């Protein structure tokens, strides 16, 4: 009987202690806690939220966002989050759903919740939405469309607006602050976009080969033409026969540039580059994908800068490249 009373007492103490710890944890700071799946969203959220928010990305910028380990610690982070921002279009399907279920946080769990923001819902022009029924014999194709829309810098604006709109509704006291930050972000990015477009203009129509089918948003915006892939099918590593065919067709089409995300193996791509005389760029595709890239604009400064300088080198001069293209 005495033991029973003791146990009851201890349970009560434990319960009260836990409640107080939990409630403190929730109320300690008024900052909005934002967890994002990839660092691009974290970088944008930081610019919009400033010192009113705490932001953390689950995936690292130098990591393949398709294959992130569903580390249990992420459950803890999502449990404490007020806002979850993720890419959608099945990019995170291999790891995020299990974390959301484990998070036991109704603020972010349901797709209809204010704290659950699937950023792809703000993108007007989702590319490569399959028109025919999808089958995995064509590789790991995403039925909702190509998920790598953040590689078109113009898509940064609707995503930033989406984040700002959520923050305004979650924290109306600071609405004007978020709005101001969004406007600054958008006008800066718009300015940068026209700069990048000017830099890219001379290379319009230039053919490039990419590693994974993830560059369509970038190449479409930059005016480049995708002439082949190192991967025979999305998600399937290159086979020797595919590589041999690719080299032949690259020579025929005079492809001068191969681009790959820097988390893919470089061996095959550099081999192909060597055989065809094309340049090979292993590029960061996410914020923090390389040291020194901490904002969304810095990411495109790097990508556009490297692509244009590689094309200048390979094609001799701008005029030359246009001439060759016409040829």
């Amino acid at each position: 009987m005495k033991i029973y009373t003791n146990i009851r007492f201890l349970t009560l103490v434990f319960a009260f202690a836990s409640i107080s710890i939990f409630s403190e944890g929730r109320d300690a700071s008024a900052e909005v806690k934002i967890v994002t799946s990839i660092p691009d969203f974290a970088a944008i959220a930081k610019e919009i939220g400033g010192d009113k928010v705490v932001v953390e990305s689950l995936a690292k910028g130098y990591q393949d966002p398709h294959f992130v380990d569903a580390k249990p610690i992420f459950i803890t982070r999502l449990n404490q989050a007020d806002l979850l921002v993720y890419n959608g279009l099945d990019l995170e399907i291999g790891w995020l759903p299990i974390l959301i279920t484990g998070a036991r946080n109704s603020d972010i769990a349901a797709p209809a919740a204010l704290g659950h923001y699937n950023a792809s819902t703000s993108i007007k022009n989702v590319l490569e939405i399959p028109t025919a029924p999808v089958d995995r014999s064509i590789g790991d194709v995403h039925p909702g469309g190509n998920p790598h829309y953040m590689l078109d810098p113009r898509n940064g604006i609707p995503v930033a607006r989406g984040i700002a709109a959520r923050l305004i509704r979650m924290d109306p006291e600071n609405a004007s602050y978020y709005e101001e930050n969004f406007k600054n972000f958008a006008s800066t990015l718009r300015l940068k976009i026209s700069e990048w477009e000017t830099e890219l203009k001379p290379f319009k129509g230039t053919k490039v080969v990419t590693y994974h089918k993830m560059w369509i948003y970038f190449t479409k915006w930059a005016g480049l033409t995708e002439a082949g892939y190192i991967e025979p099918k999305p998600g399937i590593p290159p086979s020797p026969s595919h590589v041999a065919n690719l080299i032949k067709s690259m020579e025929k089409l005079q492809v001068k540039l191969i681009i790959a995300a820097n988390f893919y193996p470089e061996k095959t791509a550099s081999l192909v580059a060597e055989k065809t005389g094309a340049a090979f760029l292993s590029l960061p595709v996410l914020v923090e994908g390389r040291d020194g890239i901490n904002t969304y604009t810095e990411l495109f400064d790097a990508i556009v800068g490297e692509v244009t300088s590689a094309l200048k080198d390979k094609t001799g001069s701008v005029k030359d490249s246009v001439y060759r293209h016409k040829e």
Partner: protein
Amino acid sequence: MNLRRTTIVLFALSIVSSPLINHKAHGQERDEIKQELKELKQMMEKMQERIDDLEERNHVLEQQAKDEAETIEVEEETDLTVIEPPSEEGQTFLGKALNTLNPEISVTGIFAGAWYSQDDPFVFAEIDPQNTGVNVQEIELGFQANVDPYFRFDSFFPITEEGIEIEEAYGTTLFSLPLNSQFRVGKMRAKFGRINQIHRHSQNFVTLPLPAAQFLGEHLNPTSIEANFLVPVPWYMELSASGGSPEVETPTFARDEDANDLGRLLYIFHIANFFELSESLGVSLGGSFATGSNGTAPGARSNLYGIDLFAKYRPLRNNPYQEIMLQSEFMYLDAETPEENLENWGWYGQLVYRFAKRWNSGFRFGIIDTNTPVEEEKEGLLVEPAGTFSLLRDEEGEEEGMLGLLGRTYRISPMLTFNPSEFSRMRLEYDYLNQSFGPNQHAIFLQFQYAIGAHGAHRY
């Protein structure tokens, strides 16, 4: 006077009649003019229409050009405060309804070609390859979906040569509850150790580790209510407790036939910790305890203790597809029987090295041993000699498994796996089995796995 009057009348008459006369004289001409005017008016109306039309077209074209050229400007001008509540973005009512009505469906098939060095080989788990030849190990149907904003339902039905079973069918709460708790209700793989929570097609070897097969059966999946809590510590810590049906396919626990006592149900407790030592290295450490009747006598209990360890090293930079995983579990069983307490224990450790995107290799060592060996009678039948216990766990005289162990058994298993994609797998494994009370056994397996349907998320 008359003349004057007549003149006036005539004059007046002429005046009065003059418009009539005039009218008669010019009527035809006026009609023509009117007609022309009408036609002109109609023409002008038509022209106006055409002008309007052209203007409209021009406007549309201009707008299109403007839209194309200035998408970004238009984007930016939108007022943030009048943005629609974002909750329904991209989700139509129909879409939602369809999502609700269509659970994610998946089918996984596991088949294995097997060769054993002896007839009637020792097989430890239900879906390990049973004989030399080609075996269906398991075909698993999975249906999973969110029920509503409050619950999620997951169900898995393995089809084996013996028929269809319920492996798991449980609901999980999705809403915030006090103390960061979450409930699962239904039939589910219990949170006991690590391997018990992993479906066969996600495991790294063809056969089930010896201690898991011996103490938990193919899987310990009682029908129960489970509460688990996320403890507010700087690392990840989860406490879970479940209570439920002792009707499980394992020799360790069984229903106490005569009991009308909540204390004799099966209770399982688990503590899970995860430490992120660096972005490349994560370590999970867990402890488990299960207690329940074992069916040998009224009130006889089995207490099963477990420790599990999992470590994964995966450098995130540059070499994304290399990883090393270490997994190990220790189990200790203390089982009361009418005559004596049985003390059995088991351990396995496995190391898996993924050396390329599609390839991994691994090595596993597993052992089960006992402090109280049971004795084997003649003719291979297990009976109950004085002083020892060989407890048949069957109702109809067929041997299903036993609570006690005959002695020490260990097994060594190297394997090599090729994954053509995320959805198919080929695995080659060699098992060497050594038993202190019987002949050694060699086995070679070539396993094939296929998964179709919904792409589930991977556990850590």
